[in-house]
């Protein structure tokens, strides 16, 4: 290569200049063509319909089944649910699925979210969808956690309390039943060996 350069010194110079001029003619031609850039804060790119941006959800539609949380590869969706008491009607979603669970917490951590869209298809009621807002910057990581549950902490606490009471009641009833059973077993032992081992 180097020897070739020496031999055709002026030819090389001419080739360098001429091919550069060809390239420059291409760029000069573009001066007379419309610009392709977008002046961002003033002009905005319209988002297509299915753009995968920030996750949004209709809380009224959520049944708390947790299918989205299971489908998430990065565990960005955190759901806490509580079983509804017997006789409490939580209503229905728009497609007629009966709600059976209180959704105490429905958090989406946008710092973890990779916007893969795997949480959308498993949802039985179509509660999760993507927002078309793409300027979702926040100053701290905490602000990136979106809380979708409309329950206040007081409401959550009362529900939890009621649940604990109900559970205690159920446990007490169970213990009572067990005690009664043991009593019955004691009063009428079928086999003497069994009563020995139980005492």
């Amino acid at each position, binding site marked *: *290569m180097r020897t070739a350069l020496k031999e055709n010194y002026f030819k*090389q110079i001419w*080739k*360098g200049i*001429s*091919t*550069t001029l*060809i*390239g420059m*003619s*291409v*760029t000069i031609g573009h001066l007379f063509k419309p610009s*392709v850039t977008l002046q961002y804060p003033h002009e905005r790119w319209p988002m*297509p*319909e*299915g*753009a*995968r941006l920030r996750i949004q959800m209709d809380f009224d539609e959520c049944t708390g089944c947790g299918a989205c949380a299971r*489908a*998430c*590869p990065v565990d960005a969706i955190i759901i806490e649910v509580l079983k509804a008491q017997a006789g409490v009607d939580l209503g229905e979603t728009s497609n007629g699925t009966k709600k059976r669970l209180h959704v105490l917490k429905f958090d989406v951590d946008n710092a973890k979210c*990779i*916007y*893969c*869209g*795997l949480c959308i298809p498993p949802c039985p009621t179509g509660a999760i969808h*993507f927002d078309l807002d793409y300027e979702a910057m926040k100053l701290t990581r905490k602000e990136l956690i979106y809380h979708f549950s409309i329950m206040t902490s007081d409401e959550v606490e009362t529900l939890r309390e009621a649940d604990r009471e109900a559970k205690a009641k159920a446990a007490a009833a169970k213990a009572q039943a067990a005690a009664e059973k043991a009593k019955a077993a004691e009063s009428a032992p079928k086999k003497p060996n069994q009563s020995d081992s139980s005492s």
Partner: protein
Amino acid sequence: MEKENLTMREMDIPLGPDRSKLLGSRAAEVDIIEGDHMILNMGPQHPSTHGVLRFELLTDGEVVVKITPHIGYLHRCFEKIAESIPYNQVIPYTDRLDYLASMNNNLGFALAVEKIMGIEVNERVQTIRVIMAELNRIASHLVSFGTYALDTGAFTPFLYAFRERERIVDLFEDVCGARLLYNYIWIGGLSHDLPPGWVEKCRDFCDYFLPNIDEYNNLYSFNQIFIDRSADIGVMTAKQAIAYGATGPNVRGSGLAWDLRKTEPYSGYENYDFDVCIGTGEKGTVGDCWDRYMVRIREMEQSTRIIRQALDRLPEGDVKEAIPKNFRKIPEGEVYMRTEAPRGELGYYVVSDGKQIPYRVKCRSNCFTSLSAIPEIGVGAMIADIVSILGSIDIVLGEVDR
């Protein structure tokens, strides 16, 4: 200090008959320059290392005597993560391997799992997959063209390349909603069907794109300054390419017509009419940087040909019909599926033990193997040529480190 001296002595290549063997074809040139060797660190924050890659260069003046690449700055445990999540959730992680060609990565993994599960996808899915893979190949080669121009000192081609890439990315956004990490090709199908009017948009793009390739050639490919920077530099012979396992445009640049789309067709590639572009050595030696670069430019033309054929034959069908409802009943077994990604052979080795999550996933990275050839082909080149060689090899560090 002492340790440094020791390594210097170790690396110091002695005079004698071994010298030419160790130094390769340009030993004579190295011999001329007498002087002490110096270690030069290139990277990990060097603008032309295409990510976080560090080269330890042992230099003799301006000539590089030994190259040691240090990788692993971008290691994210893809293979280990894949062992802990269900098969369909691995797809978003494959996006992040070679992030400039996510569609091709998705395709490889989806085909591997489909092979294990024995899923047959319909004609429409296959055709759309081919369109997406080829569009992404063009996008990836455009980035390669643009960054190689940046590496060799020209800024303008980069803007031209990204102007076209933007249109491809817009097409992808219309289809799946994402611009870089698509998660579009799912196991057994696709996440979305083509939106109405997309086929016409894609045809418009093909018509718009083909004349632009001539523009690139006028602007850059045949520029004498660029030819001087790339021809006869970093020559990788076909033998070397095979020895190092280099695939894709790198091995084709060495004059070997090895293309998995032709040799082991998948996803219906046997039905398309296209040429395998190989390096011819028209500006220098076969297998030099210019050949590798030119193979990519010519492949963009061939990809456009494939897209046009695919758009013409696009059949009707349901793109989601073969997607499994759950991944609970996976047959036991192991499979290796390789596809032709823009940077070469991308292989997935998946072992299933019948559970919902893979037992083992191994990714055969094409960039890693191509990168491993640099210590051989770069020896004897100038420091500035190393930048040119690295640009022509076209690596993405996300895939080298995985």
